[in-house]
């Protein structure tokens, strides 16, 4: 698995680096969205999680979930537009799972992408993603996960 400054960045996922989120197309055509390990490290332990409701359409780069850590509240922005098909019940019961396993059990929502091919062009993956995260961490003055 790829890593940047100690933060895991799996090279097979697609990232919106600016918004610190990943997306993965599943075999059933849905896409899974989650926060990066870097986002988790900046935020600290996440204590609350409120996803948009199943059936609602969320637009690219708009909030699909609101998370709270410490006393900070903020949005997780979906990298692609689509209708929410599932939200993560395990995370609802234990929001700290996002920090523990951000690319696995700590995913946020699944959605049915509206225009996958049209929208993923500006997302980063593989070594491009690693380089973009290194640049972002540099700009953010980040020491490491």
């Amino acid at each position, binding site marked *: 698995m790829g890593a940047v400054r100690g933060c895991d960045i799996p090279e097979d996922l697609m990232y919106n680096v*600016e918004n610190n989120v990943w997306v993965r197309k599943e075999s059933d055509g849905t896409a899974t969205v989650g926060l990066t390990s870097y986002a988790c490290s900046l935020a*600290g332990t996440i204590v*609350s999680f409120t996803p948009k409701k199943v059936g609602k359409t969320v637009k690219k780069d708009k909030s699909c979930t609101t998370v709270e850590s*410490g*006393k*900070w*509240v903020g949005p997780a922005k979906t990298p692609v537009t689509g209708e929410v098909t599932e939200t993560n019940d395990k995370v609802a019961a234990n929001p700290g799972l996002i920090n523990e396993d951000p690319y696995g059990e700590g995913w946020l929502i699944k959605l049915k992408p509206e225009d996958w091919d049209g929208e993923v062009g500006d997302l980063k993956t593989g070594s491009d993603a690693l380089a973009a995260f290194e640049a972002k961490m540099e700009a*953010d003055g980040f020491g490491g996960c």
Partner: protein
Amino acid sequence: MSERDQKTLRVLDTGLRAAAENMAFNRALLECHQEGVSPHTLRFLQFEPCALVGFHQNVDQEINTEYCKEHGIAIQRRITGGGAIYFDSTQLGWELYLDKRFLGTADMGQIAARICNAAAAGIRTLGVDAQFRPRNDIEVEGRKISGTGGAFDGDSIMYQGTLLIEFDVEDMLRILRIPAEKLSNKAIESARDRVVNLATLLGERPDLDHVKDAIAKAFAEEFAVELAPSDLLPEEQESFEQALAEIDTEEWVYQRNRPATDAPMFESIFKSDGGLMRVGVALDPERKRLKQLWLTGDIFVKPARTIADLEAALRDTPQAEMEERVRAFFAERDVEMLQLAVDDFIAAIQSALAMAETEEPAG
């Protein structure tokens, strides 16, 4: 987006407002800042009497809604996290709209610490020994004088705090959904030991403009910026009106509301050699969490704040970790107890948790 002036902090004073208006300003100004419209800003604000829940809280589980209705206290939802608070004109609100580039870090904990340390320095110039207490409080000799919290959107952050000017904690206790014994004279006195306001510390109500000036100067110094008092921009006013139309609604305030019965409370009385302990617990059965704990009783514990600290330390604790946290809590403190052991606290709390398995909720 035009390049933002990194050397100037606009000072905005929106005066005494209804809760909904202040919440709408939060959303509008954070949005406008994120869009590059708003300059870096320090806002001062005051509230007509209101109960404010944290963004992720449920009104009916946190607030005594009947009491608020009877007393004309508005109920609103913040865009920031944390717990329910009472706000009225005896408190001053301050908040900053900045971005990560300006702050030189994206680490949320570091950002909060830096802002709180600067606010504490400003309060100190008024003549009280204010200090930042991680994670989110400013206190004077162990008594809280300011609570804080933040929200972010993209690279923009909004971080806000309260400053207690003449505040009385009893007003706060009455709006919260807590067991009646927490409102006994003794319990109110013990809560007063934990909170303090500027008027009490200074012996007189300080001039509000003087307080604002002290805080503004401290932020200007911390961030090496010039202060520039000015009004809302037309775009911000427009955004504020849009936000108000969404926020001044039951839909916003009572969103994802769950009935109070979903956070059942149980009470138990536990007898030990050290005296009688009355334990109240509010639970989140779905997440198997102890949401909140209340301990009262005929027991001797020194320092007196230990009980309140224990209640705070156990907020939102997974039930499975309760015992471990109680032991860790006492392990790192020097607490004097008459005939009372740490095991008694654990057994008392367990007895209340056990009621959840067998009894109907207490109210």
